[in-house]
């Protein structure tokens, strides 16, 4: 039960707590087995929901169940304002704005006027509210469409049309073929006499294949219109586990248990079944689909975590500045204590009333306190709260470009890149470890039957483009030609043998082998129209691609499955239709790693067919029957898996009447058990599956995806360690490792493959010594290609993970260039990711496509889902999703790199930008008797971070590119700058702060000294500072912009112009004290001289340091940039390089 999240790994719990709970899902063969923990607990009436079938009134007496109308929209017209505001103020940033604004409203602290103090808050609230309102309006629109769809509901013994929103819990609904299920219903009966319904769950989990759902024996024969069903369903409370359901139904005094195979969820579509009737158990927002309709997981990027540390530092600076100001203010007041009463510019006493009182003076202590609070208000933007909002906008922009990247569009599956998590874009630029699943991620997960070994004979003859005569096998049904949808290449020898029907042993074994392939599965054949009207295609739908491949193979050899119901199957064997009763089926589970089906032959003999993984099958095969065959098969399996094929072993046993009877009774008891049904069924299966006769083995190829070897090579050049974690056998894993260039012949392999803790310990120690030796030798020979590869299997990991051996494994693994883990369970995958995550600071990325990768994807810093063949669970749990593994290269090397560079620069720049302004204000405060007067008008201080400087940083954060795509792809090593945190680190922060200090000193003191002892007024000097600071920050940005597009030009110079316009407008308002100041100022030469002097003098240190570093210690990015520009014979030296992605068109 390792795949069942109900029993979570202790250290997994924390990270997965916010994420979706998709419950258990079987591995590759996808059985919907119930969890142990679920079935052991019986439902008592307190925590059950009671549903009276066809009696909605009694069911919902207390009106506690929701109706079926849904509301994904959050707001209504009336609730929009309060609710939206409430939600917005959940963010820290907005609270900060709000508190500052409230403080400012106190008359003692009124630094800014009312309007000016509310503006920053109001503007962000407004922008967010407009965005939310638009999104909500769209949701309302789709809700309306959804709620008004029609369904047919049983009212007064007749099915009548009703709108979806009027359906109630307890009502009986009828859904016809190709209709969507309006709410979660428990099946009562279907058009199929055995009570089977086929559903497509693409809307729910994206899996396009059909799943089977069953009506219970007790209800399936009832016709609701005539035969009133009077039952009571006790079901669990609504939950979001879409693969689990537990309930029982009391009907006619009998108690029947209901499981996940008896419920159809809202959003599924009925296929291949004329009609189904069911009773509503969950409706509206309580349906599992709606409960799962929540957003993407939320993670915090590494850069943001670091940034928060620096923000703490900035807060410390802020407090320091405020303390300095308030302390000085206290000293000043104390020194002038006696003069304050009548001093012209202070005038403590108020003489306007009869009584002489202190005006706005509350004693020295309070004054100090007030000046502290006032300085917090004035210096508020020291903490760049707007940065959080800019970062969100930048991430949206970056996501826009990632989604629309032509080179990450998968034409085969018609999927674009998806950004599900919007807050970890920049983490993509710092990845050090990639953990990859194999099947479906490195490979296509499009299974193709290749070879078979039947009773010790290997049929892996010549592989030709041979499909049998006339392009594959076909049969005649009612004058129509039916052929399988997919053609399979066949082995001519085997084809011939399979056609001969004699009583020889080999012919019989071949017959049984293919019969097993055709029967022992959960595949449903669906007949679809072909282009030729006389032809029909048989499409095999099932949850496991391996099974599909096997059934198509069987069909190609003349064993064509054409019908499956829950009670029987029909197989066309070499043109002859045969019907077999399916007496029982033990579905696949990850413990047994096999499945079995019990077939009743037309001649009433009973046989059990078992198919499963070799390790689990050889345990239950009766070796005494034919030792040579077993040995030969084992040898074939080994050779198959060493060329990277997936193998399955098939066995069979005839059941005697008594054996069958014992099995049948225990099977019936187990399958109707209320508690522990899955466990009981497993026990029954284990009792049955033994002493098998080995039929043979099959080999299926899962081809590598396009571009995987090149991608892995690029990643490794980028100094990213690629680990492959797979459930496959060691041999398969190693061979895939070779074909994907993960392993090379130069590497020395360390294989750890043990069965006990002691032996694990020993081999780890040996391996450490070996690896040290190899690395020493490597260093001596200076050959960088040879290195160590570690191959370790799941059994050993059981002993190593969560024990003291972990540390040794980590040490060993970090020495190895490649780590391959085979035969690992889903939770072990997460454990391996955690092994790295706990011990290093390096970023990890997990990529996978299946349900078994979900835990790993959630554990890693960045989770990437492949939207491939195996459903969408990995995608739903992931932060990013894409169609192909090879897109990882542009994602990390190009977009990740850009995102990181952009975001890192933007954060530093925002720190600088805000601190510069605050420092200029601060210096001035020292010249105003520490009273927090600002020469810069309050409107300019407010608009500074909203209009004057906001746009360029966002635009540059979205658009600037330090290097072109081509250079980044040709030199994967350039990715190292992100891994080494070159663009954002504590040193850079401090350098930036020192630079800021210098710039603020220049910006403040040049005008002060130039205008010292002159008749300059406050507003004019304020305007000069406003313009100087805005010009400075924009020129500072302009110096760092690498790629000037027209948009960058427009934003940088545009915001300078916008600032000038704003300053002019502010100074053209006669009710403000600074009326016309800018015009008088601009008329004097000294103003322009000051401005020019400030701009040049402030930028010199930065420019000098930058130029010096560029020349003497050029970083890789700098050199690559120069090479890009001067086209420096780069192509010639690197002509051998494989171009991964040619430029578009």
């Amino acid at each position: 039960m390792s795949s069942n999240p109900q029993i979570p790994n202790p250290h997994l719990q924390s990270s997965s707590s916010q994420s979706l709970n998709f419950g258990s899902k079987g591995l590759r063969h996808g059985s919907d087995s119930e969890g142990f923990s679920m079935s052991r607990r019986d439902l008592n009436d307190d925590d059950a929901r009671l549903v009276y079938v066809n009696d909605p009134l009694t069911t919902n007496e207390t009106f506690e169940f929701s109706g079926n109308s849904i509301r994904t929209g959050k707001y209504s017209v009336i609730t929009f304002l309060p609710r939206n505001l409430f939600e917005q103020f959940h963010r820290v940033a907005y609270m900060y704005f709000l508190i500052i604004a409230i403080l400012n409203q106190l008359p003692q602290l009124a630094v800014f006027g009312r309007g000016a103090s509310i503006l920053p808050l109001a503007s962000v609230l407004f922008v967010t509210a407009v965005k939310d309102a638009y999104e909500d309006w769209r949701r309302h629109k789709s809700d309306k469409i959804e709620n008004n769809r029609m369904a047919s509901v049983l009212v007064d013994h007749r099915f009548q049309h009703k709108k979806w929103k009027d359906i109630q819990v307890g009502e009986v609904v009828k859904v016809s073929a190709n209709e969507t299920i309006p709410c979660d219903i428990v099946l009562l009966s279907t058009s199929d006499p055995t009570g089977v319904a086929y559903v497509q769950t693409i809307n729910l989990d994206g899996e396009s294949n059909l799943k089977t759902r069953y009506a219970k024996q007790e209800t399936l024969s009832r016709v609701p219109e005539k035969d009133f069903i009077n039952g009571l369903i006790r079901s669990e409370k609504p939950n979001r586990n879409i693969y689990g359901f537990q309930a029982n139904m009391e009907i006619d005094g009998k108690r029947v248990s209901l499981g996940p195979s008896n419920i159809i969820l809202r959003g599924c579509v009925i296929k291949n079944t004329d009609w189904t009737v069911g009773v509503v158990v969950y409706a509206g927002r309580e349906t599992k689909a709606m409960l799962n309709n929540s957003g993407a997981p939320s993670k915090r990027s590494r850069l943001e975590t670091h940034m928060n540390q620096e923000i703490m530092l900035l807060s410390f600076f802020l407090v320091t500045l405020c303390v300095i100001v308030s302390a000085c203010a206290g000293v000043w007041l104390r020194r002038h204590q006696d003069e304050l009463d009548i001093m012209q510019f202070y005038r403590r006493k108020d003489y306007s009333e009869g009584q002489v009182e202190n005006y706005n003076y509350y004693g020295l202590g309070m004054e100090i306190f007030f000046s502290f609070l006032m300085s917090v208000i004035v210096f508020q933007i020291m903490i760049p709260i707007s940065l959080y909002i800019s970062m969100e906008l930048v991430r949206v922009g970056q996501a826009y470009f990632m989604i629309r990247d032509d080179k990450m569009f998968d034409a085969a599956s018609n999927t674009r890149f998806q950004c599900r998590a919007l807050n970890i874009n920049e983490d993509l630029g710092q990845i050090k470890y990639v953990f990859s699943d194999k099947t479906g991620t490195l490979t296509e997960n499009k299974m193709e039957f290749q070879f078979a070994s039947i009773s010790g004979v290997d049929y892996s003859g010549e592989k030709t483009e041979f499909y049998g005569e006339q392009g594959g096998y076909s049969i005649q049904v009612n004058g129509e030609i039916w052929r399988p949808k997919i053609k399979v290449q066949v082995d001519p020898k085997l084809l011939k043998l399979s056609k001969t029907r004699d009583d020889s042993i080999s012919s019989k074994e071949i017959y049984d082998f293919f019969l097993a392939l055709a029967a022992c599965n959960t595949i449903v054949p669906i007949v679809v129209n072909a282009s030729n009207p006389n032809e029909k295609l048989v499409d095999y739908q099932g949850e496991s691609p391996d099974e599909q491949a096997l059934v198509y193979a069987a069909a190609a050899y003349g064993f064509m499955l054409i019908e499956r119901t829950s009670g029987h199957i029909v197989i066309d064997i070499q043109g002859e239709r045969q019907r077999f009763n399916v007496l029982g089926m033990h579905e696949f589970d990850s413990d047994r790693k096999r499945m079995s089906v019990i077939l009743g032959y037309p001649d009433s003999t009973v046989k059990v067919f078992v198919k499963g993984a070799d390790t689990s099958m050889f345990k239950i095969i009766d070796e005494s029957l034919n030792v040579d065959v077993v040995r030969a098969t084992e040898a074939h399996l080994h050779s198959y898996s060493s060329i990277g094929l997936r193998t399955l072993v098939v066995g069979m046993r005839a059941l005697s009447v008594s054996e069958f009877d014992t099995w049948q009774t225990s099977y019936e008891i187990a399958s109707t058990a209320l508690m522990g049904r899955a466990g009981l069924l497993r026990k029954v299966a284990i009792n049955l599956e033994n002493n098998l006769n080995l039929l043979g083995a099959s080999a299926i190829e899962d081809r590598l995806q396009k571009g995987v070897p090149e991608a892995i090579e690029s990643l490794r050049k980028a100094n990213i360690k690629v680990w492959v974690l797979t459930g496959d056998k060691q041999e398969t894993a190693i061979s895939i490792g070779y074909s994907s260039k993960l392993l090379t012949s130069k590497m020395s392999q360390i294989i750890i493959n043990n069965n006990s803790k002691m032996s694990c310990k020993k081999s780890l120690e040996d391996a450490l010594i070996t690896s040290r030796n190899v690395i020493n030798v490597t260093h001596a020979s200076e050959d960088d290609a040879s290195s160590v590869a570690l191959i370790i299997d799941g059994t050993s990991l059981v002993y190593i993970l969560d024990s003291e051996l972990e540390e040794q494994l980590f040490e060993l693994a970090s020495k190895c260039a490649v780590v391959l883990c085979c035969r690992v369970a889903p939770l072990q995958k997460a454990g391996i990711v955690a092994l790295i995550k706990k011990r290093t600071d390096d970023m990890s990325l997990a990529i996978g496509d299946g349900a078994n990768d979900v835990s790993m994807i959630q554990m890693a810093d960045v989770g990437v889902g492949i939207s491939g063949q195996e459903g969408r669970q990995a995608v739903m749990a992931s932060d990013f999703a894409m169609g192909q593994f090879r897109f990882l290269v542009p994602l990390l090397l190009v977009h990740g790199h850009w995102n990181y560079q952009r975001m890192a620069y933007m954060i530093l720049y925002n720190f600088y930008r805000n601190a510069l302004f605050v420092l200029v204000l601060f210096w001035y405060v020292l010249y105003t008797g520490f009273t927090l007067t600002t020469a810069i008008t309050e409107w300019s201080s407010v608009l500074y971070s909203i209009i004057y400087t906001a746009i360029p940083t966002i635009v540059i954060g979205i658009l600037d590119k330090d290097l072109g795509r081509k250079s980044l792809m040709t030199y994967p090593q350039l990715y190292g700058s992100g891994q080494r945190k070159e663009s954002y680190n504590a040193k850079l922060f401090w350098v930036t702060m020192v630079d800021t200090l210098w710039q603020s000193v220049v910006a403040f003191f040049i005008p002060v000294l130039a205008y010292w002892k002159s008749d300059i007024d406050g507003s004019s000097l304020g305007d000069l500072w406003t313009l100087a600071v805005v010009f400075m920050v924009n020129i500072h940005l302009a110096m760092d912009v690498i790629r000037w597009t027209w948009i960058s030009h427009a934003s940088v110079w545009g915001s300078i112009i916008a600032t000038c316009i704003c300053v002019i407008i502010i100074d053209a308002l006669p009710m403000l004290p600074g009326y016309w100041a800018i015009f008088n100022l601009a008329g004097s030469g000294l103003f322009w001289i000051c401005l020019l002097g400030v701009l040049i003098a402030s930028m010199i240190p930065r420019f000098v340091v930058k130029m010096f570093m560029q020349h003497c210690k050029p970083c890789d990015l700098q050199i690559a940039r120069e090479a890009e520009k001067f086209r420096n014979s780069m192509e010639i030296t690197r002509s051998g390089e494989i171009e991964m992605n040619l430029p578009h068109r």
Partner: protein
Amino acid sequence: MNSNPSTPMNAHAPSSSSGGAGSPDSNAPRRNSKRPKYSRFTQQELPACKPILTPKWVISAFMLVTIVFIPIGFTSLFASRDVVEIIDRYDNACVQGSKSQKVQHIQSATSNKTCIRSLTVRKRMKQPIYVYYQLDNFYQNHRRYVKSRSDQQLRNRGDENDTSTCKPEHVANGMSIVPCGLVAWSLFNDTYSFSTSNNIQLTINKRHISWKSDRDEKFGSDVFPKNFQNGRLIGGGSLNESIPLNEQEDLIVWMRTAALPTFRKLYGKIEVDIEAGETINVVVENRYNTYSFSGKKKLVLSTTSWLGGKNNFIGIAYLSVGGLCFLLATTFTIIYLVKPRHLGDPTYLSWNRNPGGH
């Protein structure tokens, strides 16, 4: 600061892939491909200029700054040198005694506040000669002070009672004050009259010493002083109630509050040249109280240049920056010559420098 969880980009985009385990001959045609529409913008391939500062550019930039800054620096210095400035501090000279005696003297209504100063002109002063008063240690930018005014009231006769921002000098004897507030209340009221040694009176032109914009827009022509300096504490000068505010230029100048605690305000202009060696006698009516907070009062006569008053700072600053840039230009030239680097040479890349290091 989590991003709004309800808006994952493309999160629920349904997969329209027809699925079907690998169906190369799938007959379902792929309608509406989701391939992103190609544009240079979405592919981030907009034409762009990628400037790289080569040594040539760096040196030229420094040289350019040198070439621009050195001449400006010299011109500024010369301009400043040509300005003739006479500064006379008279607050202590006019009143002797301890601080409390001084305060008492200045507050007394009856004491004789006339004080005569004589200034020697060392260098010829060409007209117009600007007469300033300079206050030191007077925080006209104090927050209590700058806020205590009503710009509405100054503009509009109708807003006479708009005095809420003027506290604590908004009403006196129960009536609104026009102009209200501490700024107006503390109006500077020392007066100066000048005569040469030959007893020729030098007329001071006090017209148009304020900004035209202030006279035209900010101070109303129909707003007359009212109830001004009628409170129990007199802060400074009083105003003629028959002259509208826009003609009370001393008030207009005073109400443009200074940026720094040491400031000058224009008192008037002398529109004749004064020869070198001449002595000017100044009769000062020393009324303004700076004694209570140890402020200084100075009388300043100054000619002017294109750069304003006498101030060497800009000249020195420009010369320093210019000189520094010249130095930097030479330093970088030397660096580039001694240790040249071929731009974009891949051998400098870190993984090429130390092989095996990745």
